[in-house]
């Protein structure tokens, strides 16, 4: 089924909050998945897979311990949402010296943050992991993925810097987001954790009922 991009963003934001991100990072996750959906990339599936993985281990939402040097996390694998937000916040670092990370999960989820940094810088930015090369700018995305590794669950390193040249036609944008039914159900499960159980008391008090509304 297709969804409006606003629906994709709203549901993903709630799901990310339900998965344990702070509100500010949950907002970032919503925007990131919306951006990926608008290029036909399955960001929602990646986010669900990331958290299914986390539920099975003790990993949480780790960003880099230090912004200088290679970005690593003592506690384990870098989270692409937290690390992506830090990457965008550190746009100048991308321009000045580039950023290299250690092990990072679902690197596709970091692409929207690089695009946001590119917009901030007014430059084209490249990301590289495994055989994948991505170029992004304000309104453009180029993907070079000869071995089909854009959706890999983990890479040992990822590099981000200014881009020197691009390749071919940019990816077309679309106005709707496609989400598989099982991914949609999983997002709803995460999101449901943010909804308070309804009680008769909350039904009456919480929305200010009690006066007739059938007149």
């Amino acid at each position, binding site marked *: 089924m297709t969804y409006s991009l606003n629906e994709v963003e709203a549901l993903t934001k709630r799901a990310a909050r339900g998965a344990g991100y702070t509100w*500010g990072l949950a*907002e970032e996750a919503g925007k990131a998945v919306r951006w990926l959906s608008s290029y036909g990339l399955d960001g929602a599936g990646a986010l669900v897979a990331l958290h299914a993985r986390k539920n099975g281990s003790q990993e949480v939402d780790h960003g880099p311990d230090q912004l200088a040097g290679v970005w690593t996390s003592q506690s384990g694998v870098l989270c692409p949402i937290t690390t992506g937000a830090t990457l965008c916040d550190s746009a100048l670092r991308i321009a000045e010296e580039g950023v290299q990370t250690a092990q990072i999960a679902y690197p596709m989820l970091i692409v929207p943050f690089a695009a946001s940094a590119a917009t901030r810088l007014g430059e084209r930015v490249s990301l590289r992991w495994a055989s994948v090369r991505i170029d992004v700018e304000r309104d453009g995305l180029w993907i070079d993925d000869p071995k089909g590794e854009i959706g890999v669950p983990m890479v040992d390193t990822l590099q981000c810097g200014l881009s020197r040249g691009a390749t071919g036609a940019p990816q077309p944008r679309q106005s709707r987001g496609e989400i598989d039914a099982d991914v949609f159900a999983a997002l709803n499960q995460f999101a449901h954790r*943010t909804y308070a159980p309804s009680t008769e*008391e909350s039904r009456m008090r919480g929305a200010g009922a009690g006066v007739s509304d059938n*007149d």
Partner: protein
Amino acid sequence: MTYQPQNLIPRRDPAMVMKLARLGSFHQSRLSFMRILTRRMTRENWTFSRPVFEIDDQGVGHAVFCAHTGERTYSLVAFAHDLPADKRSDRVIAEAWDSTFTLFDGVPTADDIARLARNVPLQEAGRVTERELSVSRANRSVRLWEHVVSHLAAGTQPDTTEIAKVGYLMRTTAVYGSGKLGAADREQIAERPEFSAPFQVEMLSVYLTRVYVRDLVQHMANQRGGAKAATLAPEIARSMGIGNSTGLGMAPFLLNHPKLLNNWIMAREEAIARVRSLATARPADAKLFRELLARSVVSAKIWHSEHEIQRDKLVELRRDLDVLVARTRSSDLVGNYPWDHLYGWAETHLGVDAQECLASLMLEPYGDLVDPLTDGMSDADYSAFRIKGAMTLAHVSKILADRYHWVSGIDWAAAQNCARLWYVSEEKLEPRLGERFEEPLADYEQPLAPGRDAAALQTVIAGLDQGATVAEFLSKHPEHRCSMRRIQMAEHAPYAEIRDNTIGSDLLPIDMLRCKLSFFGATHFDPRSDRWVRICLFGNAPFPEELQHAKSDDWAYPPREAQVV
């Protein structure tokens, strides 16, 4: 948006404007979204048609109402239902309605209508597509509906006293746009001139709904009365608007769209400053002002509410408007910065409600100064979301000092100052307000207390190296990311933030609802509790066949002879 300071009189201080008591006293104005729409419809000679009206003698079926802009056609597809009385509720948690609607982008085919008939009546439980721009529903005013149908069926006009008591035949209980339930995202249509101002899709949907309601009530009367049924008199039809019942969902909207809120308030404040800066007024301007003031007095007289807070406010507003009328009799309103003097006098002699009524009224003679400001009321600045990571904490501290100095005046640890919390219920995702210390809801709290969160951020960064960057800070303190985003946004958006406690025990959510609804152009706010309100939309507005004869767009002020009950 921002404007270069060019007025002699500056815009009003956000510290004064952005208090809930004032926002909750706002009145409609030339900048209201309904009036932006009707001005455009008149200016561009929109035409209207009703290609389908297939509703049976029980009032069940569907109809299509089209608005033709010249470039495009938009169609309200309306479904009429036979709703048992015990299912009728204004709440979001309702599951059936008297009528349901969608605004279709173009003219729907029979296949489109068949698809919509399977989905639109279900509202949240159905799905629409990017061909649809909104989804909405409405319930009858049970009392007035039967009154009007039975009188027309008997060949007589309805009693205008009964009509004046309610003001509408149906009230909408939700109008969803912007991608909700699968509809088109706002971004897909925002470039169309007719939708560039905020909420124009929703306003168009409600405008066409009013036509549908008029036609449906006539149809039902004709079914019942046959040949002897009377046709509803145009002036009675025109006096009725569409009711709207609005709950807590609108309050989080204002908090979740700080840039948009800023742009609305900024436009109105800039308009007020421009008019106050006029050295003189033309006699015709003063005459128009006095005329609309007289009609505002009528509007306040026919405005009723059973709610004690609103009753008290109305007593004060009516008294103040009489004082204002007396004042304007003793002044020619022509020379010596007349509007600034009048407004300055009002600040010390009238209550907040009448001050805001006056502020809106002063704009009326000056469409040339005011109406272009509508261009800046949308928010297309998506970059504001992006955190400025290179900003230093010293810079953040300066924004906090400029824009958030009010947060230090509140003891956020005191129980009465954090007594409430906003949450979303699993029951149809209805937004609700809970009691923090009485209900087990803390884990579900939504981030809708910007003042408290800014105070917490301020405390943390006060102890840190002020030369550190926001990027460094947030990498260690991701819990402040949401608040940091707002604070950075507020730097260039002075009216972005409500400068009051949104979780205190004395919070009145209806203040936030009235602020938003006043920008829609709503009048006659009738709170039903501290957290939901009924209003009237498009009351006295011209119907499609009357638009081209409309000499002005001041229909929001009732006629002077309007019936007072």
